[in-house]
């Protein structure tokens, strides 16, 4: 066997291993999700069956119909929850990203006194256990009268997301060479233009990943939402999930159906934001 054949075999072997690894990883990731979808479509008797029923005998959308059929007929106010979740998650993500970009840029590009202290201090605000925070926050919110409002939750989620959007966006601005922005300024751009035309596109993967993470964090947050919301005016989907639990029983089928409703928008959004994970640097427009 000459060296070329050996090399070729080795290469295709490596490729096959990559594919197998990828397949196994994806299977493990997807299985619980598929299980949820399947369980939302079949009768509870089958979910609880012993011995297990692997291949469903009948599929129906009953759980979904029931869920949307309105309060009092076995349904839950899912549209209101959905609307609240959407408004709160999107608004808080956008604000957190803007604040995070400003802060991240400050850390990446300027020197100022106590920089390390500020940087660590920011992240430490996220170290506070929910329980030490949620009750006093409840008191403060009650005094201000913003319990059970969108604004209250948005404010809380922005505060929750800002520390890491700053850390992450700072990390990505650091990867952008300083010379690039300086070169743009020499070429006649203002600092502001240099930022938007040169530095921002290059840091985009970081901003996109921070955005995805921030959105999913607020979309899924439960502990604060369950404390700071009271009614359908501001209850979010994760809180709504508990509508399906009684003291000793859990309506698995209904819960799975609501889970599917929760996951689909997140999935769609993540898929849409995907393309920004690739920066201008890799597309070859600018060489680093």
């Amino acid at each position, binding site marked *: 066997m000459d060296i070329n054949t050996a090399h070729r075999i080795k290469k295709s072997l490596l490729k096959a291993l*990559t594919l197998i*690894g*990828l397949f196994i990883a*994806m299977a493990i990731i*997807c299985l*619980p999700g598929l*299980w*949820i979808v399947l369980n939302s479509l079949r009768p509870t008797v089958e*979910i*609880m*069956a*012993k*011995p297990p029923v692997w291949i469903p005998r009948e599929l129906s959308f009953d759980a979904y119909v029931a869920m949307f059929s309105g309060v009092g007929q076995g349904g839950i106010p899912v549209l209101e929850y959905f609307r609240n979740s959407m408004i709160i998650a999107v608004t808080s993500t956008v604000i957190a990203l803007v*604040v*995070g970009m*400003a*802060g991240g840029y*400050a850390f990446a590009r*300027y020197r*100022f006194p106590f920089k*390390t202290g500020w940087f660590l201090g*920011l992240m*430490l*605000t996220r*170290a*506070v256990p929910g*329980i*030490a*925070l949620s009750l*006093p926050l409840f008191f403060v919110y009650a005094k201000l009268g913003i319990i059970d409002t969108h604004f209250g939750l948005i*404010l*809380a989620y922005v*505060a929750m997301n*800002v520390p890491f959007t700053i850390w*992450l966006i700072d*990390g*990505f601005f*650091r990867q952008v060479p300083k010379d690039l922005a300086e070169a743009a300024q020499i070429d006649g751009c203002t600092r502001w233009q240099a930022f938007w035309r040169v530095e921002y596109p290059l*840091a985009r*993967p*970081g901003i996109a*990943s921070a955005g*995805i*993470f921030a959105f*999913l964090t607020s979309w899924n947050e*439960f*502990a604060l939402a369950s404390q700071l919301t009271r009614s359908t005016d501001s209850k979010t989907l*994760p809180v709504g*999930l*508990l509508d399906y639990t009684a003291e000793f029983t*859990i309506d698995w089928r209904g819960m799975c159906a609501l*889970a599917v409703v*929760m996951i689909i928008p997140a*999935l769609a959004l993540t898929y849409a934001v*995907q*393309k920004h*994970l690739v*920066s201008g*640097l*890799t597309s070859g427009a600018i060489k680093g």
Partner: protein
Amino acid sequence: MKAWRLPPPFLLLLPAVIVLAAVVIIPLLLSFWSSLTPFRLTRPDSIYQFIGFRNYERIFTDSEFWIAFGRTVLLLTFALNLEMILGLGLAMLVERATRGQRILRTIMMFPMMFSPVLVGFQFKFMFNDNIGLINNALQSLGLTDQAIPWLIDGNLAFFAIMVAEIWSSTAVFAIFILAGLMAMPRDPLEAARVDGCTPWQTFRYVTWPFVMPFAFIAMTIRSLDVARAYDIIKIMTDGGPAKRTEVLWTLIARTGYSDAKMGMANAMSYVAILLSILFTFMFFRQLAKARAQIAAEW
């Protein structure tokens, strides 16, 4: 006359500081005060009764607290390291894929779309000893003929929680590391290939130093989240069976709400915050070192 202006970095950081002050600092001061009182939710007046550091003294001699503390550190160490290794592997696998990358990236983040509450319910159901997916699968495959009591046996329950935790959060590492890989300039990689590096050497000396900062940022975020959120454990076992999976946050919640000793719970929280500070500081040091290695200025 020129108006006095704040220097730009402070101006840029101002919004962040304002939001954090409003939502975190003020409630934090309130809860710190209450940790110095025998505050009970059932007796709101007790918040005005100052008892100094008595709550803290009691905690330091409370073995239950320290066991929970140790278990939290154990969970953090194991889960975080495994998540980072798996996340790195996943990110590199996905980055290597030539086709369908967008779909793969979306699937990769799939577990992040599960609310922790949902993950808790989901894995509680899957690990159910009687009708759960995992026991059913094991029995159908003939690997075992009796039901394994995943959530009832203390050691297994801890393992089950770890599985749920790792399943749900590996994606966080994967997404940040992948974004780092995507932002990585190609020239050093080509240079390494021209210089005749083996794939391992290329990874070790070119790729890894570059993505390391992002891995540490993810570590910091995750360590703080694991140390503060409690949805998954609360729902899966609520610290049981017989306190074998009791971690700091379930203990704090139980003390605060079930036993109604809010002052005590807040004192515990402050000791727990020390743990988070330690972890954050540790990861920050590593982050700074990793950045020094790729000659980034701090």
